[in-house]
Protein backbone atom coordinates (compact mmCIF):
# COMPACT_ATOMS: atom_id res chain seq x y z
CA UNK A 1 0.00 0.00 0.00
CA UNK A 2 1.49 3.34 -0.95
CA UNK A 3 2.14 6.12 1.55
CA UNK A 4 -0.28 8.32 -0.33
CA UNK A 5 -2.91 5.63 -0.03
CA UNK A 6 -2.30 5.29 3.70
CA UNK A 7 -2.56 9.02 4.26
CA UNK A 8 -5.61 9.58 2.06
CA UNK A 9 -7.81 8.46 4.91
CA UNK A 10 -10.52 5.86 5.13
CA UNK A 11 -11.38 6.37 8.78
CA UNK A 12 -15.09 6.73 9.45
CA UNK A 13 -16.69 8.45 12.40
CA UNK A 14 -18.72 6.01 14.53
CA UNK A 15 -22.41 6.34 13.72
CA UNK A 16 -25.53 4.77 15.15
CA UNK A 17 -27.48 5.71 12.04
CA UNK A 18 -26.03 2.88 9.99
CA UNK A 19 -28.74 0.71 8.45
CA UNK A 20 -28.26 -2.82 9.87
CA UNK A 21 -27.94 -5.60 7.34
CA UNK A 22 -30.13 -8.70 7.17
CA UNK A 23 -33.68 -9.56 8.04
CA UNK A 24 -35.42 -8.23 11.14
CA UNK A 25 -34.39 -10.50 14.01
CA UNK A 26 -33.17 -10.62 17.57
CA UNK A 27 -29.39 -10.74 17.43
CA UNK A 28 -28.85 -11.31 21.12
CA UNK A 29 -31.10 -11.16 24.15
CA UNK A 30 -30.53 -11.28 27.88
CA UNK A 31 -27.20 -9.48 27.62
CA UNK A 32 -26.21 -8.56 31.15
CA UNK A 33 -24.34 -5.29 31.28
CA UNK A 34 -23.08 -2.74 33.78
CA UNK A 35 -22.99 0.93 32.88
CA UNK A 36 -22.34 4.20 34.65
CA UNK A 37 -24.90 6.98 34.33
CA UNK A 38 -23.16 10.23 35.17
CA UNK A 39 -24.92 12.49 35.64
CA UNK A 40 -28.31 10.99 36.35
CA UNK A 41 -31.17 12.84 38.01
CA UNK A 42 -33.27 11.28 40.73
CA UNK A 43 -36.94 11.24 39.69
CA UNK A 44 -38.44 9.34 42.59
CA UNK A 45 -37.50 7.23 45.59
CA UNK A 46 -39.80 4.41 46.74
CA UNK A 47 -38.23 3.60 50.10
CA UNK A 48 -40.56 0.73 50.92
CA UNK A 49 -40.06 -1.07 47.63
CA UNK A 50 -36.38 0.03 47.28
CA UNK A 51 -37.04 1.37 43.80
CA UNK A 52 -35.20 4.37 42.44
CA UNK A 53 -36.47 6.40 39.51
CA UNK A 54 -33.64 7.96 37.50
CA UNK A 55 -33.60 10.15 34.43
CA UNK A 56 -30.66 8.97 32.32
CA UNK A 57 -29.88 10.94 29.17
CA UNK A 58 -33.42 12.31 29.36
CA UNK A 59 -35.03 8.88 29.63
CA UNK A 60 -36.95 8.04 32.86
CA UNK A 61 -36.02 4.54 34.10
CA UNK A 62 -36.78 2.61 37.30
CA UNK A 63 -34.26 0.45 39.09
CA UNK A 64 -34.20 -1.76 42.16
CA UNK A 65 -31.60 -0.81 44.73
CA UNK A 66 -29.06 -3.56 45.39
CA UNK A 67 -28.62 -4.64 49.02
CA UNK A 68 -25.03 -3.42 49.12
CA UNK A 69 -26.01 0.19 48.30
CA UNK A 70 -26.08 2.04 51.62
CA UNK A 71 -26.14 5.74 50.83
CA UNK A 72 -29.59 6.09 49.26
CA UNK A 73 -31.89 6.72 52.21
CA UNK A 74 -31.49 10.51 52.12
CA UNK A 75 -31.91 10.84 48.37
CA UNK A 76 -34.63 13.14 47.10
CA UNK A 77 -36.18 13.90 43.75
CA UNK A 78 -34.00 16.34 41.86
CA UNK A 79 -30.69 15.15 43.29
CA UNK A 80 -27.88 14.67 40.79
CA UNK A 81 -26.09 11.36 41.15
CA UNK A 82 -23.54 9.12 39.51
CA UNK A 83 -25.10 5.66 39.35
CA UNK A 84 -23.61 2.33 38.41
CA UNK A 85 -26.43 0.36 36.85
CA UNK A 86 -26.99 -3.29 36.12
CA UNK A 87 -29.18 -3.71 33.06
CA UNK A 88 -30.19 -6.35 30.54
CA UNK A 89 -30.11 -5.57 26.83
CA UNK A 90 -31.81 -7.00 23.82
CA UNK A 91 -30.15 -6.20 20.54
CA UNK A 92 -32.16 -6.64 17.38
CA UNK A 93 -32.65 -5.55 13.79
CA UNK A 94 -35.79 -3.52 13.29
CA UNK A 95 -38.08 -4.06 10.32
CA UNK A 96 -37.48 -1.48 7.60
CA UNK A 97 -40.88 -0.02 8.32
CA UNK A 98 -40.58 0.42 12.05
CA UNK A 99 -43.61 -0.94 13.84
CA UNK A 100 -44.40 -0.98 17.53
CA UNK A 101 -42.37 0.79 20.16
CA UNK A 102 -39.13 2.42 19.08
CA UNK A 103 -35.83 1.11 20.48
CA UNK A 104 -34.35 2.74 23.59
CA UNK A 105 -31.02 3.22 21.83
CA UNK A 106 -28.87 2.15 18.92
CA UNK A 107 -25.45 0.57 18.91
CA UNK A 108 -22.67 3.07 18.27
CA UNK A 109 -19.39 1.17 18.90
CA UNK A 110 -18.67 -2.49 19.66
CA UNK A 111 -15.39 -3.48 21.36
CA UNK A 112 -15.48 -7.26 21.82
CA UNK A 113 -11.94 -7.37 23.20
CA UNK A 114 -12.76 -5.29 26.27
CA UNK A 115 -16.49 -6.27 26.17
CA UNK A 116 -17.60 -2.66 25.71
CA UNK A 117 -20.82 -1.66 24.01
CA UNK A 118 -21.37 2.05 23.42
CA UNK A 119 -24.95 2.94 22.60
CA UNK A 120 -26.63 6.17 21.60
CA UNK A 121 -30.00 7.10 23.05
CA UNK A 122 -32.59 8.52 20.71
CA UNK A 123 -31.94 12.00 22.16
CA UNK A 124 -28.25 11.78 21.24
CA UNK A 125 -26.87 10.93 24.68
CA UNK A 126 -24.45 8.03 24.90
CA UNK A 127 -23.47 5.44 27.46
CA UNK A 128 -20.83 2.72 27.42
CA UNK A 129 -21.76 -0.65 28.93
CA UNK A 130 -19.42 -3.35 30.18
CA UNK A 131 -20.89 -6.61 28.92
CA UNK A 132 -20.90 -9.63 31.26
CA UNK A 133 -18.06 -12.06 30.59
CA UNK A 134 -19.92 -14.91 28.95
CA UNK A 135 -22.59 -12.89 27.16
CA UNK A 136 -22.20 -13.22 23.41
CA UNK A 137 -21.51 -10.07 21.41
CA UNK A 138 -21.26 -11.95 18.15
CA UNK A 139 -23.18 -10.32 15.32
CA UNK A 140 -23.76 -7.00 17.09
CA UNK A 141 -22.89 -4.03 14.88
CA UNK A 142 -23.31 -0.28 14.74
CA UNK A 143 -26.90 0.75 14.00
CA UNK A 144 -28.55 -2.26 15.67
CA UNK A 145 -31.54 -1.44 17.83
CA UNK A 146 -31.24 -1.84 21.60
CA UNK A 147 -33.94 -2.39 24.19
CA UNK A 148 -32.72 -1.61 27.71
CA UNK A 149 -34.30 -3.40 30.65
CA UNK A 150 -33.32 -1.69 33.92
CA UNK A 151 -32.46 -4.11 36.72
CA UNK A 152 -30.81 -2.45 39.71
CA UNK A 153 -28.50 0.25 40.97
CA UNK A 154 -25.31 -1.35 42.32
CA UNK A 155 -23.39 1.80 43.31
CA UNK A 156 -24.45 5.37 43.89
CA UNK A 157 -22.63 8.64 44.52
CA UNK A 158 -24.37 11.94 45.10
CA UNK A 159 -22.77 14.76 43.16
CA UNK A 160 -22.72 17.07 46.17
CA UNK A 161 -20.83 14.41 48.14
CA UNK A 162 -18.36 14.03 45.28
CA UNK A 163 -17.84 17.79 45.24
CA UNK A 164 -17.40 17.84 49.01
CA UNK A 165 -14.87 15.02 48.80
CA UNK A 166 -12.92 16.83 46.08
CA UNK A 167 -12.77 19.96 48.20
Amino acid at each position, binding site marked *: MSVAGLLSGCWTVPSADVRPTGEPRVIAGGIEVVGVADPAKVESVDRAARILGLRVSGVPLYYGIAGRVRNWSDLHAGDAVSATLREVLTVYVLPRKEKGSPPDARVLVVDPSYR*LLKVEYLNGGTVTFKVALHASMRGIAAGDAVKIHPVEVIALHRHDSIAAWMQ
Partner: protein
Amino acid sequence: MCRSFLAGTSVRTLGLVALPLLSALPAPTQAQGISPAQAALIRNVIGARVEAMTILGGDFGLSDGSFHSTGALDGMGADVDTSVTKVGGDGDVGDPMPLGDLNIGWQPRLQGSMGYLESSDHLQARPLGGDTSELKTFAIEFGGGARFWTSQNLSFAPTVMALYGHTDNTYFAYSQFGRQDLAYLQQLGLADWSVDTWSVRPAVNVQYIVPLERALITFSSDPTGFFTHGFNRSNVREKVGGDSGLVVNKIDVDIPLDVELYGHELRSGGYLSRTDLFGDLKEGLGVEHVNEVHARLVLDFLNQLWKLQWLGVGASYLWGTNINGWTVGADVAFRF
Protein backbone atom coordinates in the same frame (compact mmCIF):
# COMPACT_ATOMS: atom_id res chain seq x y z
CA MET B 1 -4.28 4.40 25.78
CA CYS B 2 -1.78 5.37 28.36
CA ARG B 3 0.77 2.97 29.65
CA SER B 4 3.08 3.06 32.56
CA PHE B 5 5.46 0.32 33.58
CA LEU B 6 6.73 0.69 37.11
CA ALA B 7 9.75 -1.49 37.62
CA GLY B 8 10.20 -3.25 40.90
CA THR B 9 13.27 -5.43 41.17
CA SER B 10 15.68 -5.61 38.31
CA VAL B 11 19.30 -6.26 37.55
CA ARG B 12 20.74 -5.26 34.21
CA THR B 13 24.20 -5.27 32.81
CA LEU B 14 24.86 -2.10 30.93
CA GLY B 15 27.96 -0.70 29.35
CA LEU B 16 28.48 2.84 30.60
CA VAL B 17 31.07 5.32 29.44
CA ALA B 18 32.46 7.78 31.93
CA LEU B 19 35.32 8.91 34.05
CA PRO B 20 37.03 5.54 33.75
CA LEU B 21 38.62 7.14 30.69
CA LEU B 22 40.84 8.96 33.13
CA SER B 23 42.26 5.72 34.36
CA ALA B 24 42.97 4.60 30.82
CA LEU B 25 45.43 7.40 30.28
CA PRO B 26 49.09 6.48 30.64
CA ALA B 27 50.34 7.41 34.09
CA PRO B 28 52.61 10.30 33.04
CA THR B 29 49.70 12.06 31.31
CA GLN B 30 47.37 11.89 34.28
CA ALA B 31 45.95 14.97 35.94
CA GLN B 32 48.43 17.84 35.65
CA GLY B 33 49.95 16.05 32.68
CA ILE B 34 46.66 15.83 30.77
CA SER B 35 46.92 17.53 27.42
CA PRO B 36 44.15 19.89 26.28
CA ALA B 37 43.19 17.38 23.59
CA GLN B 38 42.89 14.58 26.15
CA ALA B 39 40.87 16.76 28.50
CA ALA B 40 38.59 17.72 25.63
CA LEU B 41 38.12 14.04 24.77
CA ILE B 42 37.18 13.24 28.36
CA ARG B 43 34.80 16.20 28.46
CA ASN B 44 33.13 14.93 25.29
CA VAL B 45 32.65 11.55 26.90
CA ILE B 46 31.27 13.14 30.05
CA GLY B 47 28.96 15.31 27.93
CA ALA B 48 27.60 12.32 26.06
CA ARG B 49 27.10 10.48 29.31
CA VAL B 50 25.21 13.38 30.92
CA GLU B 51 22.95 13.49 27.88
CA ALA B 52 22.42 9.72 27.99
CA MET B 53 21.80 9.68 31.76
CA THR B 54 19.26 12.48 31.44
CA ILE B 55 17.38 10.59 28.72
CA LEU B 56 17.61 7.30 30.60
CA GLY B 57 16.51 9.01 33.79
CA GLY B 58 13.68 11.07 32.44
CA ASP B 59 12.29 9.76 29.17
CA PHE B 60 9.10 7.71 29.33
CA GLY B 61 10.20 5.58 26.37
CA LEU B 62 12.93 3.86 28.36
CA SER B 63 11.98 1.82 31.41
CA ASP B 64 13.42 2.29 34.86
CA GLY B 65 15.27 -0.26 36.97
CA SER B 66 18.66 -1.08 38.41
CA PHE B 67 21.64 -1.50 36.10
CA HIS B 68 25.05 -2.94 36.60
CA SER B 69 28.06 -2.62 34.33
CA THR B 70 31.59 -3.88 34.51
CA GLY B 71 33.41 -1.56 32.14
CA ALA B 72 32.60 -2.35 28.57
CA LEU B 73 34.95 0.24 27.09
CA ASP B 74 38.08 -1.36 25.77
CA GLY B 75 38.56 -3.30 28.95
CA MET B 76 38.88 -0.21 31.11
CA GLY B 77 38.32 -1.09 34.70
CA ALA B 78 35.10 0.24 36.13
CA ASP B 79 32.24 -1.17 38.11
CA VAL B 80 29.15 0.91 37.47
CA ASP B 81 25.87 0.72 39.40
CA THR B 82 22.96 2.74 38.08
CA SER B 83 19.45 2.91 39.50
CA VAL B 84 16.56 4.72 37.84
CA THR B 85 13.23 5.48 39.47
CA LYS B 86 10.66 6.84 37.10
CA VAL B 87 6.96 7.53 36.84
CA GLY B 88 5.20 8.56 33.66
CA GLY B 89 3.40 7.46 30.56
CA ASP B 90 1.56 8.47 27.45
CA GLY B 91 -2.06 8.59 26.49
CA ASP B 92 -4.57 9.54 23.82
CA VAL B 93 -7.41 11.63 25.17
CA GLY B 94 -11.02 10.81 24.40
CA ASP B 95 -12.43 9.21 21.29
CA PRO B 96 -11.17 10.13 17.82
CA MET B 97 -12.95 13.13 16.27
CA PRO B 98 -13.35 13.86 12.58
CA LEU B 99 -10.71 16.16 11.10
CA GLY B 100 -12.70 18.56 8.96
CA ASP B 101 -14.17 16.89 5.91
CA LEU B 102 -11.28 14.47 5.63
CA ASN B 103 -11.83 10.83 6.40
CA ILE B 104 -9.28 11.14 9.17
CA GLY B 105 -9.91 10.96 12.90
CA TRP B 106 -7.79 12.71 15.47
CA GLN B 107 -7.43 12.92 19.21
CA PRO B 108 -5.10 14.92 21.47
CA ARG B 109 -2.17 13.07 22.96
CA LEU B 110 -0.33 13.80 26.23
CA GLN B 111 3.01 12.43 27.36
CA GLY B 112 4.98 12.99 30.53
CA SER B 113 7.60 11.51 32.76
CA MET B 114 9.70 12.32 35.79
CA GLY B 115 12.66 10.37 37.08
CA TYR B 116 15.66 10.25 39.34
CA LEU B 117 18.90 8.46 38.50
CA GLU B 118 21.93 7.62 40.56
CA SER B 119 25.04 6.16 38.99
CA SER B 120 28.25 5.23 40.76
CA ASP B 121 31.44 4.41 38.87
CA HIS B 122 33.77 2.44 41.10
CA LEU B 123 37.09 2.88 39.29
CA GLN B 124 39.29 -0.18 39.36
CA ALA B 125 42.27 0.43 37.05
CA ARG B 126 45.34 2.13 38.45
CA PRO B 127 46.21 4.82 39.22
CA LEU B 128 42.65 5.92 40.13
CA GLY B 129 41.62 2.48 41.37
CA GLY B 130 39.44 2.76 44.45
CA ASP B 131 38.01 6.16 43.51
CA THR B 132 34.27 6.59 42.91
CA SER B 133 32.61 9.03 40.54
CA GLU B 134 28.95 9.51 41.34
CA LEU B 135 26.26 11.05 39.12
CA LYS B 136 22.84 12.12 40.34
CA THR B 137 20.35 13.19 37.70
CA PHE B 138 16.84 14.51 38.09
CA ALA B 139 14.87 14.79 34.88
CA ILE B 140 11.35 15.77 33.95
CA GLU B 141 9.65 15.90 30.56
CA PHE B 142 6.24 16.86 29.28
CA GLY B 143 4.66 17.38 25.93
CA GLY B 144 2.08 16.13 23.54
CA GLY B 145 0.71 16.14 20.08
CA ALA B 146 -2.10 14.39 18.30
CA ARG B 147 -2.91 10.96 17.01
CA PHE B 148 -4.32 10.82 13.49
CA TRP B 149 -6.34 7.79 12.40
CA THR B 150 -6.27 7.18 8.67
CA SER B 151 -8.25 3.96 9.08
CA GLN B 152 -9.84 2.15 12.01
CA ASN B 153 -6.51 0.33 12.47
CA LEU B 154 -3.69 2.61 11.33
CA SER B 155 -2.65 5.77 13.16
CA PHE B 156 0.22 8.26 13.35
CA ALA B 157 1.07 10.33 16.40
CA PRO B 158 3.58 13.16 15.91
CA THR B 159 4.60 14.67 19.24
CA VAL B 160 7.00 17.19 20.69
CA MET B 161 8.28 17.17 24.24
CA ALA B 162 10.64 19.24 26.35
CA LEU B 163 13.05 17.45 28.69
CA TYR B 164 14.82 19.22 31.55
CA GLY B 165 17.61 17.57 33.49
CA HIS B 166 19.95 18.49 36.31
CA THR B 167 23.07 16.40 36.90
CA ASP B 168 25.54 16.58 39.80
CA ASN B 169 28.88 14.83 39.83
CA THR B 170 30.70 14.03 43.03
CA TYR B 171 34.16 12.55 42.86
CA PHE B 172 35.32 10.52 45.87
CA ALA B 173 39.11 10.35 45.74
CA TYR B 174 40.41 7.45 47.80
CA SER B 175 43.47 6.59 45.72
CA GLN B 176 46.72 8.39 46.40
CA PHE B 177 46.70 9.75 42.87
CA GLY B 178 43.14 10.95 43.14
CA ARG B 179 43.67 12.72 46.43
CA GLN B 180 46.79 14.37 45.08
CA ASP B 181 45.26 15.71 41.87
CA LEU B 182 41.59 16.20 42.78
CA ALA B 183 41.86 19.98 42.76
CA TYR B 184 43.31 19.93 39.27
CA LEU B 185 40.59 17.55 38.03
CA GLN B 186 38.01 19.93 39.51
CA GLN B 187 39.68 22.86 37.81
CA LEU B 188 39.53 21.07 34.47
CA GLY B 189 35.82 20.41 34.98
CA LEU B 190 36.37 16.67 35.12
CA ALA B 191 35.33 16.15 38.75
CA ASP B 192 32.76 17.63 41.16
CA TRP B 193 30.75 19.46 38.55
CA SER B 194 27.08 20.11 37.89
CA VAL B 195 25.13 21.03 34.80
CA ASP B 196 21.54 21.59 33.69
CA THR B 197 20.27 20.46 30.31
CA TRP B 198 17.22 21.02 28.22
CA SER B 199 16.25 18.89 25.27
CA VAL B 200 13.66 19.06 22.55
CA ARG B 201 12.19 15.63 21.81
CA PRO B 202 10.34 15.28 18.49
CA ALA B 203 8.90 11.84 17.78
CA VAL B 204 6.38 9.98 15.69
CA ASN B 205 4.51 6.91 16.80
CA VAL B 206 3.13 4.75 14.00
CA GLN B 207 0.71 2.10 15.10
CA TYR B 208 -1.29 -0.63 13.36
CA ILE B 209 -3.82 -2.67 15.32
CA VAL B 210 -4.96 -6.10 14.14
CA PRO B 211 -7.99 -7.55 15.96
CA LEU B 212 -7.89 -11.33 16.02
CA GLU B 213 -11.10 -12.66 17.57
CA ARG B 214 -10.96 -10.89 20.96
CA ALA B 215 -7.18 -10.54 20.98
CA LEU B 216 -5.44 -7.37 19.82
CA ILE B 217 -2.09 -7.41 18.06
CA THR B 218 -0.40 -4.01 17.81
CA PHE B 219 2.57 -3.27 15.60
CA SER B 220 4.27 0.03 16.41
CA SER B 221 7.36 2.02 15.59
CA ASP B 222 8.66 5.05 17.49
CA PRO B 223 11.47 7.05 15.90
CA THR B 224 12.55 9.67 18.44
CA GLY B 225 15.14 12.46 18.44
CA PHE B 226 16.75 14.39 21.29
CA PHE B 227 18.44 17.75 20.70
CA THR B 228 20.18 18.72 23.93
CA HIS B 229 21.84 21.88 25.20
CA GLY B 230 23.67 22.39 28.47
CA PHE B 231 23.40 25.47 30.69
CA ASN B 232 24.09 26.52 34.30
CA ARG B 233 27.48 24.81 34.12
CA SER B 234 29.47 24.84 37.34
CA ASN B 235 32.63 24.92 35.24
CA VAL B 236 32.85 26.84 31.99
CA ARG B 237 34.99 24.06 30.52
CA GLU B 238 32.16 21.55 30.68
CA LYS B 239 30.82 20.59 27.30
CA VAL B 240 27.34 19.16 27.34
CA GLY B 241 24.96 19.07 24.42
CA GLY B 242 24.41 17.17 21.24
CA ASP B 243 22.07 14.94 19.33
CA SER B 244 20.67 11.57 20.28
CA GLY B 245 18.03 9.28 18.91
CA LEU B 246 16.29 6.00 19.38
CA VAL B 247 13.90 3.85 17.38
CA VAL B 248 11.64 1.39 19.15
CA ASN B 249 9.96 -1.28 17.01
CA LYS B 250 7.45 -3.34 18.91
CA ILE B 251 4.85 -6.10 18.53
CA ASP B 252 2.35 -6.18 21.39
CA VAL B 253 -0.22 -8.91 21.97
CA ASP B 254 -3.20 -8.35 24.29
CA ILE B 255 -5.20 -11.52 24.99
CA PRO B 256 -8.37 -11.77 27.10
CA LEU B 257 -8.47 -15.08 28.99
CA ASP B 258 -12.23 -15.53 29.53
CA VAL B 259 -11.59 -15.96 33.24
CA GLU B 260 -12.92 -13.55 35.84
CA LEU B 261 -11.25 -12.67 39.14
CA TYR B 262 -12.92 -10.36 41.66
CA GLY B 263 -15.30 -9.18 38.94
CA HIS B 264 -12.56 -8.36 36.45
CA GLU B 265 -11.46 -10.37 33.44
CA LEU B 266 -7.90 -11.66 33.42
CA ARG B 267 -5.86 -10.62 30.41
CA SER B 268 -2.49 -11.88 29.36
CA GLY B 269 -0.05 -10.62 26.79
CA GLY B 270 3.21 -8.89 26.29
CA TYR B 271 5.51 -7.54 23.69
CA LEU B 272 8.71 -8.11 21.82
CA SER B 273 10.67 -4.96 21.04
CA ARG B 274 13.98 -3.81 19.67
CA THR B 275 15.36 -0.38 20.56
CA ASP B 276 18.20 1.02 18.46
CA LEU B 277 20.16 3.89 20.00
CA PHE B 278 21.93 6.62 18.07
CA GLY B 279 24.27 9.55 18.68
CA ASP B 280 25.25 10.55 22.19
CA LEU B 281 22.72 8.15 23.69
CA LYS B 282 24.56 5.24 22.09
CA GLU B 283 27.97 6.64 22.99
CA GLY B 284 27.00 7.66 26.50
CA LEU B 285 25.51 4.29 27.42
CA GLY B 286 27.83 2.16 25.33
CA VAL B 287 24.78 0.35 23.98
CA GLU B 288 23.83 0.03 20.31
CA HIS B 289 20.54 -1.79 20.68
CA VAL B 290 18.39 -3.50 23.27
CA ASN B 291 15.89 -6.28 22.70
CA GLU B 292 13.13 -6.77 25.23
CA VAL B 293 10.57 -9.52 25.68
CA HIS B 294 7.85 -8.58 28.14
CA ALA B 295 5.03 -10.66 29.60
CA ARG B 296 2.14 -9.44 31.70
CA LEU B 297 -0.86 -10.77 33.58
CA VAL B 298 -3.40 -8.10 34.37
CA LEU B 299 -7.01 -7.53 35.42
CA ASP B 300 -9.28 -5.58 33.06
CA PHE B 301 -10.71 -2.49 34.75
CA LEU B 302 -11.77 -0.61 31.62
CA ASN B 303 -15.07 1.21 32.15
CA GLN B 304 -15.14 -0.18 35.68
CA LEU B 305 -12.76 2.04 37.64
CA TRP B 306 -12.17 5.61 36.52
CA LYS B 307 -9.78 5.64 33.53
CA LEU B 308 -7.87 2.54 34.57
CA GLN B 309 -7.53 0.06 31.71
CA TRP B 310 -5.62 -2.68 33.45
CA LEU B 311 -3.63 -3.39 36.58
CA GLY B 312 -1.37 -6.35 37.16
CA VAL B 313 2.20 -7.54 37.04
CA GLY B 314 4.72 -7.63 34.23
CA ALA B 315 8.21 -8.94 33.71
CA SER B 316 10.83 -8.27 31.06
CA TYR B 317 14.00 -9.91 29.90
CA LEU B 318 16.44 -7.67 28.04
CA TRP B 319 19.43 -8.45 25.93
CA GLY B 320 21.56 -6.59 23.41
CA THR B 321 24.88 -4.86 23.00
CA ASN B 322 26.55 -4.80 26.42
CA ILE B 323 23.25 -5.29 28.15
CA ASN B 324 21.22 -8.12 29.55
CA GLY B 325 18.96 -8.51 32.50
CA TRP B 326 15.39 -8.59 33.68
CA THR B 327 12.85 -6.50 35.47
CA VAL B 328 9.63 -7.23 37.34
CA GLY B 329 7.04 -4.71 38.40
CA ALA B 330 3.50 -3.46 38.43
CA ASP B 331 1.93 -3.12 34.99
CA VAL B 332 -0.59 -0.29 34.81
CA ALA B 333 -2.42 1.14 31.81
CA PHE B 334 -4.89 4.00 31.58
CA ARG B 335 -7.27 4.98 28.80
CA PHE B 336 -8.43 8.59 28.88
